[in-house]
Each structure stands twice: as structure tokens, then as C-alpha cells.
């Protein structure tokens, strides 16, 4: 019983449990949601893209920053992917993927440089680049769009192919998650990201390379948004200038629901990715069970607010428990 309690207290497990309940409940009402040929595939495939974005976002949010430009970066990199294939259909897929990821990294670098060196709040900087990068795609693409016919079959195949019943894009997302989780948990630099988010002033006093770490976080986030752009092109086959519009808010919501503190310092990429899967799946499940559009959005809003209130309540409760433990350990201080 205590073990169950402990597991439930972990945010990742709690979010995963809600996810299971949502899937189970929807399947009971509409068995096709999970138990059809496409149902299983969509369950894994649709959230993959948002999950990759959420992993990148979590790396930035942990440092007490935020990247609102990810939707625009995704659009730009998706369009770049399509254009490269349209211009040179014989390019190796690996090369195009690398180019899109690199482009995303450069866009992330721009964000990082302004945030880390000009000391402008990330919220403002990335709100600016959200529009600037989108403007870039609009200028570049105009009213043109990349269609499936412009891209090689081998590439589009990645968007639908499955290995042992698991879509390739879902495998990509899981790999990204595993690498990021491992890095954040076991590398010195990864732990320093948490330290910086926990107390930026103390991090400077401690002598941590604060600017370099923040820069790295934004570059990683940009690169992952670039990768998500490639996934978008492969999955949907068409890319217009509006690709990924508004996605940044879903991603930030997913990160918060997944238990990454919006003021930095705590949370995991696993939680963020699970949160992404939950949000996307709820968005798919509600229309299936016949919930009207207004309530679909309201449910997501309630979920985000619940997550934040829950964080607050749990943090307060933990602080009180720690204070009590202290008084028990140092009775003479209480007596004094």
C-alpha cells in the first residue's frame, strides 16, 4: 500500500494513470478508439511530435526560461525539409533531417544568445521570435505549399511505417526522450540546468557557467523543434506556411501538466512527454465520445490549472512536513 502511495506521489506516474483512465474510458464508450487497426497507431503516432517538442521545452523551462517560438521553428524547419526534397529529390533522407535539425539549432541559438547575453526575459524574446520566424516562413513560402508529391516515397514512408507494431515516429520520440532524460539525470551539465533554474543568483555566486548552460538549453530546444518539423513533414505529407501555428501553447501546457515547475528547478522530461501524450490524447478522445467543442477546450484549461494548483498544494505540504521533521530532530531549538 505504501509503495502504491509513493508511486502515485511521483508526478509522472500520476499523469500516466490519468492517461490510462482516459484511454480506457474512451475505449469502453467507443471500442474503435483503441481496438481498431488505426486506433492503436494513432494513439502512439499523433502525440509523438508534441512529445518531442515538450522534451525540448522542458529543458528550457527547467532553467527558469521558456521558448514560445517552437511552433514557428517547427513550421520553418518543416518547410525547409519539403523545399530541400522538392529541389533535389535524390538527397539522402539523413542529410535532409540533419539540415532541418541544424536549422532549428541555429534558430534556438538566436533565442539563447539574446536571453543569456542581452539579459532580456525569455518570455519577451521568444514571443518576438515566434512572430519573426513565422514571418520568415510566410515570406519564403507565400501561398505555396509542399505536397506529398514533392517528397520522396522513402521519406513519407517514415511517417506511416511501423516496426513490430510501433510507428517509427513514436520510436524517434522515445529515443529523444531517453537521451534527454539520461543527460539531465546523469551529467554534471544537466544537474546544473536544474541548479540555475532553482536559484539563478546563487548559480552565479557558485561560479556555474550560467550563460553557456542557458544557451545550450535553447539550442537543444531549437534542434528538437527542427526535428519535430521533419516529423511533421513526414507525418502529414503537406507543409504550408502555417504549419505548427499555436503549437507552443499546447507544448507549454503539456510541460506544466507533466510536472515541470514553470519557475524552474524541478520536473523531468519524462513527465513533460507524458503530459504531452495526455493532452493530445484528451483532445482526440473528447470528440470521439461526443463532448462539444467548447468543453474540449475547457477541459484542457482545467487540467493545466489543476496541475499548477496541485503543485502548490503538494509543495506546501512537503515544506510543512520537512519543518515538522526538523522540530523533532532538534527539540532544543524549539525549546529555546
Amino acid at each position, binding site marked *: 500500500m505504501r509503495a502504491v502511495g509513493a508511486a502515485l506521489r511521483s508526478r509522472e506516474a500520476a499523469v500516466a494513470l490519468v492517461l490510462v483512465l482516459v484511454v480506457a474510458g474512451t475505449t469502453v464508450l467507443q471500442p474503435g478508439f483503441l481496438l481498431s487497426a488505426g486506433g492503436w497507431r494513432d494513439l502512439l503516432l499523433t502525440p509523438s511530435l508534441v512529445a518531442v517538442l515538450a522534451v525540448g521545452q522542458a529543458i528550457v523551462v527547467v532553467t527558469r526560461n521558456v521558448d514560445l517560438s517552437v511552433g514557428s521553428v517547427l513550421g520553418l524547419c518543416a518547410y525547409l525539409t519539403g523545399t530541400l526534397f522538392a529541389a533535389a529529390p535524390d538527397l539522402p533522407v539523413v542529410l535532409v533531417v540533419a539540415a532541418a535539425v541544424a536549422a532549428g539549432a541555429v534558430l534556438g541559438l538566436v533565442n539563447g544568445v539574446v536571453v543569456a547575453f542581452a539579459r532580456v526575459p525569455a518570455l519577451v524574446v521568444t514571443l518576438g521570435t515566434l512572430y519573426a520566424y513565422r514571418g520568415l516562413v510566410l515570406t519564403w513560402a507565400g501561398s505555396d505549399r509542399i505536397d506529398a508529391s514533392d517528397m520522396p516515397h522513402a521519406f513519407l514512408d517514415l511517417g506511416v511505417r511501423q516496426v513490430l507494431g510501433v510507428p517509427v515516429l513514436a520510436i524517434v520520440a522515445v529515443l529523444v526522450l531517453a537521451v534527454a532524460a539520461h543527460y539531465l539525470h546523469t551529467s*554534471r551539465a544537466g544537474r546544473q540546468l536544474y541548479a540555475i533554474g532553482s536559484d539563478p543568483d546563487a*548559480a*552565479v555566486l557558485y561560479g556555474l557557467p550560467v550563460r553557456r548552460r542557458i544557451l545550450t538549453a535553447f539550442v537543444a530546444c531549437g534542434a528538437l523543434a527542427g526535428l519535430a518539423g521533419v516529423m511533421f513533414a513526414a507525418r502529414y505529407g503537406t507543409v504550408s506556411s502555417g504549419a505548427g501555428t499555436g503549437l507552443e501553447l499546447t507544448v507549454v501546457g503539456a510541460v506544466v501538466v507533466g510536472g515541470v515547475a514553470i519557475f524552474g528547478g524541478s520536473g523531468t522530461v519524462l513527465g513533460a512527454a507524458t503530459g504531452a501524450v495526455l493532452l493530445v490524447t484528451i483532445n482526440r478522445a473528447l470528440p470521439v465520445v461526443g463532448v462539444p467543442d467548447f468543453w474540449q477546450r475547457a477541459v484542457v484549461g482545467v487540467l493545466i490549472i489543476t496541475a499548477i494548483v496541485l503543485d502548490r498544494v503538494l509543495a506546501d505540504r512537503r515544506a510543512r512536513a520537512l519543518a515538522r521533521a*526538523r522540530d523533532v530532530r532538534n527539540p532544543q*531549538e*524549539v525549546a529555546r
Partner: protein
Amino acid sequence: MSTPVLRLEGVRKAFGPVVALRSGTIVVEPGSIHALVGENGAGKSTLVKVVAGVHRRDGGTFELGGVPADFRTTAEAKAAGVAVIYQEPTLFGDLPVMENLFLGSEPLDRLRRIDRRAMRAHAHELFGRLGVDIDPDRPAAGLSIADQQLVEIAKAISLDAGLLIMDEPTAALSGVEVERLFAVARGLRDEGRGVVFISHRFDEVFGLCDTITVMRDGAHVSTDPVAATSVDEVVTRMVGREVTDLFPKVPSTPGDVVLEVRGLERAGTFHGVSFDVRAGEIVGLAGLVGAGRSEIARAVFGVDRYDAGTVRVLGRPLRPGDPAAAVDAGMALVPEDRRLQGLVPQSTVAQNMTAVVRRRISRLGLLSTARENARAAEWTGRLEVRTAALDMLAATMSGGNQQKVVLAKWLATGPRLLIVDEPTRGIDVATKAEVHRLLSGLAAEGLAVLMISSELPEVLGMADRVLVVREGRITAELDRADATPERVMRAATVGAAS
């Protein structure tokens, strides 16, 4: 003679017009525990921060182990073997205690991954050495101040530094913990390292250290072997200056009791605090930084709550924890940090001055700039605030003028009791005298003033009566005639009033 671990000579550091360190000199020999003492504001912390790489010196010699040093970052100082325990712990609350200990130098396994098991073992080992029992896996948030301090000490020891600087490490520790810390310090000394120990507790200084350096007003005063000096001698050197008539105190006859505080108590902060302030009287609240003076003032004003005791204003009990009630009862509080708590820097001078009386000067809930300006003009005249225009932003003014604006803001409420916390911190000498003249004049007009100040000359020059606070208790109450620098400093450090 061996090479000193640390040698500073004539080190200077200024922040804008304020010179924090005029001539910092200290030579720490290997295998020695060196005490650094001085009043608040004597420049000790600035000196430490130069050595730690937080501040860069403006001039003077700085050598570490005989090699010239010039640190631009704390990381450089750390790499050169300087470990510092600051007054305020700087831990990362979200991270586990053990990660706080080893951040940036965590033990790695063969795959260069952080080895948490080894880290935990190291943490246990360090805490064992200090004789404390802190769970390495718990988050640092929620640790008591004493435990945070112990984590800081463990952190410093783990660096294996050649020079360990402790800036008032014992303020929050209990007797047993202090003894253990001293045992560790002696161990480091016997290994041939240098230890610098900053403390206001002379019993500790004389029990632990072998050499003592006294600083005053940002400069070196003396360095002696501890055996060759005495507490009285050191106290005299710390104050060692004549109280000049820089502060034109106008004599006044105290009237009725305005503020009556009885048995005020808050666990862990202050205990059994009782005092009166009369109309026309300036009462100085002296003591060291962290003694609990500001906390007492905040509790009296109702910003913070208290566990027991009563506060009466003009004989009527004041509701605890209600600053609005305090203002209605005729109290005003000019806080310590005017930038943070007293002033809205992005508002104009006029808006700042009229902030508290907004409701009185508004009509039908609307404010008029003309009425704001009229009010403000009256006060800029009375307080001689030097400002080009009333619509200037408060942020662009000098510290002294900012302080006057904050004063004007509260005086506009027509208070009977004014509490000022460090009224002249960071203000140049000329403006300082003006603020003093102002306070003195207000008292002469019948205002009751409670003044918190860490500057001894200010307290002695201004106050009709001095209350000395040490570790949350009032340890002495001295009349103007009896308040000598030595007596106040003694009550603030040793405790028992002589």
C-alpha cells in the same frame, strides 16, 4: 618564514561614490586561524568578496600562496583553492542536499555518469566529520538555517581548499554544532591550511583564533596575536573614533508615551521585547546586523505576526498583523531597503510622495496630477528634496534624495510615530547630515522616532535613548549621557551590559 596563504595589502573597492573598502590588509599564515573583526560596514564582507571573486578590486596587492591573484569569477577563486562560507547560505532548494554539496564536481563512474551512490557515501562521510545527521537525499529547501549553514560548511570542506573563509558561520548554530565546527577548523589549521574567521562573538574569537585583525571604516587598524590583546582593546579599536557633532541633535523634552511595546515574542526571532517611545524623543535601536532589530520593527508595525506580547499606540492596543491599522493609528515605517520596499522607482517623484495619501487627495475616486503635484511641492520644499521636476522618475534620483522622498511620503500621513530603518544607508555624508537634521527637527516638533541604525556614530549622535539588541533580546538600555561606543558595542557583542 613561510609563504602566507593569503596576502592583501591596501586593497580598495568602491561602488559608485560609496567606498566600501579603502585599504584592506590581511596576511594569513598557513596553519593559522585568523580572526577578522570590525563594526557593521567596516568592509569585512567586501574584503571577503574580493578574495572570493565576487567583486574585483580597484587597486592594491592581492596574493594567494605567494602568487599574484585577480579573480573575475567565483569559479576562478574556487579553482585556486578558496572556499567561502557566506553569511546567508546559498543553496539550491530544489536539488537534493548531496547535489548541493558536489555540484560541478560530482563523482563520475566509468561512463562519465554521475555516480549517486558514491556521492551519497561522500556526503555521509562529510556529515560524519561534522557530526551531523542530514539526509543527503532530501531537498535543500526547508532545512533550518543552522542545517543550511552546516551544508555550506560541508561543501567548503569538500573542496579541499587551502584557504577557508567563514563569514559569521556560527550565528545560527547551537553550542554543540559550534564546537564541532571549531574542531573541524582546528583540524584544517593543523593540516597547514589558512582559516579566516569573521565573528562578532568575542568569546569564540578569543577561544579559537591565534591572530586577530581589526578593521574600521574600510581600512586595516591593527593585527596582533590573540594572546597579546584583550577584548576591551579590540572593542576600543573597532569603534576608535570620536563622535563628532556631525549630527545636529536638537535637545527636546520627551512628552507622553506614544508607543508602548510589552513582552513581544516570536519564536526563533525575538524574545521578551519591551520598550516605550515618547513624543519628541528619538530612540535608537542599536545592534549587529541580524540581531533582530528590523524584525522587531516589522512586527510592531504589523507587517509580520508575533506569538505573544502587546503593542499600544497612544494607550490604545494595536491589532497585530495589520499595517493599515498601524497607519490609521498614526504610525509610519520607512523600511531598510528603500528600492525594494519604500519606493516605486518607475513612478514619478510626485506619485511616490503622495502614494499613501492617495485616498485623501482624490475626488470621486479620481486622482488629479495637479493635486498630486501641489501636495508633493509642499513636501519637496520642506525636506529640501533636490529634484529637477516633480514628474521625474524616482529611479533617477540620488540615494539621499530617494530617502527624502520616502520620508516625505510617510510624513504626509501626519504620523505620531515614525520608525526609520537604516535611514542613511548608502547616502553620501552631506545628505546624511541633512537627513539627521530633519529627523532631529521632527522630534523637536513632538514626533516620536524609533531609529534602527547599524552605524554607531549615528545612533550615539542622534538618539536620546539607546536600546541595544543582541540575538533577539534587548541587552541594554542607555541614556544619551551613558551611551558610549564601548558600552553599546559590548552589549551588542558580549551581551551583558557593563
